């Protein structure tokens, strides 16, 4: 156990600035966006420092009460990678927001966006099962408000759907946590994880069902994901990008932290304690998500809605990879999570730029985009190809690993991956259709004038997709460490938090 208390700044600094942004807002509204940007860039720098200087695994003790007695943050490989991802995505979207958020209540939007990023980071970092709920609520409330932002009325409808489903989800989660507390008398993830087999199996199963259902709302698994299409479509594009690039990341992380570390039983393939194997349950849900998401996206004419459904399906793919439960599968899942986050964020940002410059959201409006804006259409294609898992783009490696892992596992996972691959063909159809529309030349509209501010994040994201595609070890080394953390519950997590806890 190494203690790295300064990492509390990852939460503290955004909070401090979030509280002070209203004061900056008194000076100038535009200043608040810069404050958000700088704060998130501090977070990004610090988390990248943690990641690259290999400051993990370490814990952050809150209030000088060592775990399992107080609260703590745990910075493992997964957390380090995902916090960096979340912060960098947040930074890039904040750069985009500099340009896109001009009207309305800019100050409060900045606060909410900053806290959305910080809340997602907190969700990833925290080592306390109730603290996870708090951060879930921080992320949740800020995303409801962000999703409702904007002049269009569909934003409100989407936000309301998100709010209702998510409230039910968090209630279920809270009930599950309480049930576990009644028997174990602790809320620390590491201690619960080590002692989970001391609970009675019926209660464990029920609590697990409640917790998994509650977290599946955030992780966008069917049937808990009804809110996804409407919310993503309703929100302004920057927010949709943040929801899929940041919110979904933390949601899926929380789900698998609970399913694999808390309920998990170590083995060649991680399974879970209790009567029900939650990994298998999640695998089934995730497969349903992939298939339903891709099929629903197939006939969409609205590109934004298509991206929303696709985002859902991609989260399903991530969950499929993680739920296989061996190192290769988790590797693929985490890798896919990174790829999806990058690509989907980029595509939503591109859509935002296009919509702002007068191109519609319908697929017909994408005709001849290549002639009108070569950079944006090329970047969009890069994102689409990464989604489809074409080589030289990031998505190839993750899909490769996920398919490899599930075939390695065999059994009914062969069937699952068959369905997933079928869904991928469907996905290929609708993405390549957009690409085909973009590269046709029958557009009579003039060339687009792309503002340079939002092109910075898009350019960075596109380049990083190709960079990951060519040098997969950029992400691969970290996601391999993450895989070993997820699949080795005791040595990867519990013993790093509470070193003196005995093995089973």
């Amino acid at each position: 156990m190494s203690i790295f208390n300064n990492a509390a700044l990852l939460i503290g600094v955004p909070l401090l600035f979030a509280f002070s942004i209203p004061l900056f807002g008194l000076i100038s509204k535009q200043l608040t966006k810069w404050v958000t940007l700088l704060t998130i860039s501090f977070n990004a720098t610090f988390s990248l420092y943690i990641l690259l200087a290999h400051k993990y695994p370490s814990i952050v003790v809150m209030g000088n009460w060592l775990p399992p007695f107080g609260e703590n943050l745990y910075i493992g490989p997964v957390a380090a990678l995902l916090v960096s991802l979340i912060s960098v995505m947040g930074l890039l979207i904040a750069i985009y927001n500099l340009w896109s958020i001009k009207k309305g209540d800019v100050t409060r939007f900045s606060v909410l966006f900053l806290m959305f990023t910080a809340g997602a980071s907190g969700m990833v970092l925290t080592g306390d099962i109730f603290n996870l709920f708090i951060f879930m609520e921080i992320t949740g409330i800020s995303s409801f408000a962000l999703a409702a932002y904007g002049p269009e009325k569909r934003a409100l409808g989407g936000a309301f759907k998100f709010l209702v489903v998510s409230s039910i989800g968090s209630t279920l989660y809270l009930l599950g946590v309480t049930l576990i507390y009644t028997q174990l008398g602790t809320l620390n993830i590491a201690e619960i994880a080590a002692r989970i087999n001391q609970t009675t199996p019926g209660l464990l199963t029920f609590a697990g069902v409640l917790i998994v259902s509650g977290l599946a709302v955030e992780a966008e698994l069917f049937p808990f994901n009804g809110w996804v299409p409407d919310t993503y479509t309703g929100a302004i594009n920057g927010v949709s990008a943040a929801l899929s690039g940041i919110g979904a990341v933390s949601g899926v992380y929380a789900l698998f932290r609970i399913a694999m570390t808390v309920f998990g039983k170590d083995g060649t393939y991680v399974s879970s304690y209790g009567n029900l194997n939650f990994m298998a349950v999640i695998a089934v849900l995730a497969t349903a998500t992939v298939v339903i998401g891709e099929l629903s996206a197939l006939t969409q004419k609205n590109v934004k809605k298509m991206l929303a459904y696709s985002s859902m399906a991609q989260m399903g793919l991530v969950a499929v990879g993680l739920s296989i439960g061996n190192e290769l599968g988790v590797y693929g899942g985490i890798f896919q999570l990174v790829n999806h986050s990058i690509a989907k964020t980029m595509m939503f940002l591109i859509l935002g730029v296009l919509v702002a410059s007068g191109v519609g959201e319908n697929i017909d409006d994408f005709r001849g985009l290549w002639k009108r804006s070569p950079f944006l259409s090329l970047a969009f294609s890069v994102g689409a190809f990464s989604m489809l898992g074409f080589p030289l783009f990031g998505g190839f490696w993750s899909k490769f690993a996920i398919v490899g892992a599930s075939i390695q596992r065999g059994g009914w996972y062969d069937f699952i991956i068959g369905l997933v691959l079928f869904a991928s063909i469907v996905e290929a159809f609708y993405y390549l259709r957009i690409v085909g529309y973009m590269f046709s030349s029958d557009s009579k509209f003039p060339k687009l004038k792309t503002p340079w501010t939002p092109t910075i994040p898009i350019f960075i994201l596109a380049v990083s997709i190709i960079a990951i595609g060519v040098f997969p070890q950029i992400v691969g080394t970290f996601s391999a460490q993450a895989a070993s953390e997820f699949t080795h519950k005791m040595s990867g997590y519990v013993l790093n938090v509470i070193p003196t806890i005995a093995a089973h």
Partner: protein
Amino acid sequence: MMQEFLQNYVYLIGSMSLIGIGLYITLTDENIFKIIVGLNIIESGTNLFMVAIAWYPKAVMPIYTLTNKLSINGKVIAADPLPQSLVLTAIVIGLGTTALALTIGIKIFEKYGTLDVRKIKEAGR
């Protein structure tokens, strides 16, 4: 006998009934505000549940005062303060969610002109 049954179950039955009733409102009533009322009742039920698991017969309140001893012979006799503190948090979070939900509800009414959840959707999908 009756007393023991009540001690064991009455709060749990109460909280579960509240959760069930809240869920029922949420699932059946089409009015947005009514749905939020349902969510709030679910919230209350959850809170009651969490406090109920912290309590046992003859527990004292977890506050040191001149007359209130929390432990006798190394055995704690106070109600569990931890779930209570969690509930404190949950109540405040519930208020935040309610306020935001109501705001979104009002805004929906302003823009869609209705409070019926069935009508809050886009034409094409």
